[in-house]
């Protein structure tokens, strides 16, 4: 059973990383570690900031043929 559980957990981790669902947690960890004095944005604000960045430079995350 443990290997099955591990496999499922690995898949979950992989999908979350691949879709960037984990981006917020990663960003929070980054801010807490490197800029302890800075305020941590809410998830909603963070996700907005992320799409706005893509808006201002569409080459970010560009995919091709």
């Amino acid at each position: 059973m443990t290997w099955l559980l591990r496999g499922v957990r690995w898949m979950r981790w992989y999908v979350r990383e691949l879709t960037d669902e984990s981006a917020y947690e990663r960003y929070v960890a980054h801010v807490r570690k490197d800029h302890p004095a800075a305020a941590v944005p809410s998830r909603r604000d963070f996700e907005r900031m992320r799409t706005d960045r893509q808006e201002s430079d569409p080459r970010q995350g560009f995919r091709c043929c």
Partner: protein
Amino acid sequence: MRRAEPRSIAVWTLVALVGAAGWTVLALARDEEVSAAWMVAAALGSYAIAYRFYSKFIAYKVLKVDARRATPAERLDNGIDYHPTDRRVLLGHHFAAIGRAGPLVGPVLAAQMGYLPGTIWIVVGVIFAGAVQDMVVLFFSTRRDGKSLGQMARDEIGPFGGAAALLAAFAIMIILLGVLALVIVNALAESPWGTFSIAMTIPIALLMGFYLRVLRPGRVSEVSLIGIALLLIALVAGRRVAESSLADTFTLAPSTLVVWLVAYGFVASILPVWMLLAPRDYLSTFMKIGTILLLALGVVVTLPTMRMDPVTDFASRGDGPVFAGSLFPFVFITIACGALSGFHALISSGTTPKMIQKETQVRMIGYGSMLMESSVAIMALVAASIIDPGLYFAMNAPAGVVGDTVQEASKAVANFGYSISPADLAQAAKNVEESSLLSRTGGAPTLAVGVSEIFSQVTGGSMRAFWYHFAIMFEALFILTALDAGTRVGRFMLQDMLGNVYKPFRRVSWKPGLVLTSAAVTGLWGYFLWVGVHEPLGGINQLFPVFGIANQLLAAVALTVCTTLLVKSGRLKWAWITGVPLAWDATVTLTASWQKVFSDDPRVGFFKQRSIYQDAIDDGKVLPPARTMDDMHTVVTNSTVDGVLSAALALLIVIVIADAARVCLKHIRDPEASRLSEAPYVESKVTAPAGLFPTAEEKREARRDGTREPTR
């Protein structure tokens, strides 16, 4: 010198034998039908050998990747676009970014020359050119904080060559979008099932976008599951719609679809990213990975036999109906993605280098994911080669040649030297519940027929129509995303260029500028789309070669930048690593554009074509396949535009290569004087494995540093 272990020698000998057996069977097969398993064996065996030996040689001997040098992700970590990403995740990201509809289209069209030329180019091309380009660009961009290809061209070659490269990239983007849009128009025209299910992806994406923005921000997996479920419902519902009274609403003529697509492209590109682009991107990525896995599984389970000839007569005669011209150079520009694609250089130099943990991982991510992309191209070639060649040519020849009825089509196919009865043609369309499959050019419908053939062998014949439309939806989804994203990138380039003349254009938030440049970009690709749909000689037949030339010319720019960088960074001895692929690519592409401009064969040379039709107009005659005098004038205008474009693109690339050669020569004469804009060395503080599986030594390192693999 390290001695190889006997076990490893045995394993690699076995791999080599499997690959060699595959190639032998493919090469020696004459009149019997060969199993696709041999093609898979030849490709996979070659990939494994190339990855194990050649890519390792390039990484450690040529590039000298340094595990102790900190990557931009480590040095500039901002938790958003620069952050060290697990190599397996980044492999997925990078593969999803490079592998879109491209490798599925080119090989299908190139199948008109038989499956052998395409297979050889896909496998040999990826090993020595495509994967090398992706990996070397990724390496150099990583050493430059993730600078883009255009910036690297400007920094390392000079402003003149840099500007030419930028202009080429813009032109290529426009042609790419026009041709991709043409591919969906050909797939969706007169097909209510397809059109309905694709139209439904717009409300589905809007719903997903709203969910992610307002309801539950960032919950991508759950919204993707919802989206995919809705997508499959739309697909199933499409059949009902096609049988209902709504069918007429969704049965659109090609010229109507053009208007819808151009309008869609314009509106989508000025809407905020979160509304359509981002959610659509999640959908297409999941669909891609799912479909590719299914297809790989289907090919391995059913092991279909290939019914296309290994090499057809069109390869030497150069009069193929899908695209004109002989094997050299046209197979090599028709198959771009999958063998060598310049567009990948834009991704290897943009997003990925900002996320890579270790320089040593460029081999797995750059070279490895390109091998994966190449295997997708092989599967597309398999799908096109297992269908009846008669059906293949009836689907892929221009409408003017095939005619409007199955009887005419059957005769036209007989003229090509193949045979299919009118009844079989009608049955093939009925099997996938389409009104007609005649002249469904562009590759997507052919691939869909091949895919439905393979999948329905697993799931039973009754699912055939479902799988056909599944495959169409899968390709159309990509292409619609590409139209949106591509228009944005084209607009960004245009804003940047116009910003030199009138400053406010450069401000992305300046709304009038945004709308104007968006309209300009959609107008430009919309023009090519319109032309392609109304081209009497067949839009794909005329435009695909121009697209192929454009894409391979971008590869020439990328390889030129790589070669210049190898020379300037003191690796002159190894400059052939990208220099030889560059020489090959430049020869192929410049020959193709030369023939497209100067050939005396009116099927190949645009200007010869133009003069023949112009002379006929002067004499008041109408030449088939044109049907009216208007058609004649259309041909004259289009061949002039296409001819001028082919010449201009070739000229731009000659400028880039000449400018780079000048820089290289200058460096060789006086190495001290040239400047290399590499980011300074900083020692890395983290350890991470280089390959997919950590070696014993890397495991020891990880234990020592306490950097364990995640999730354990």
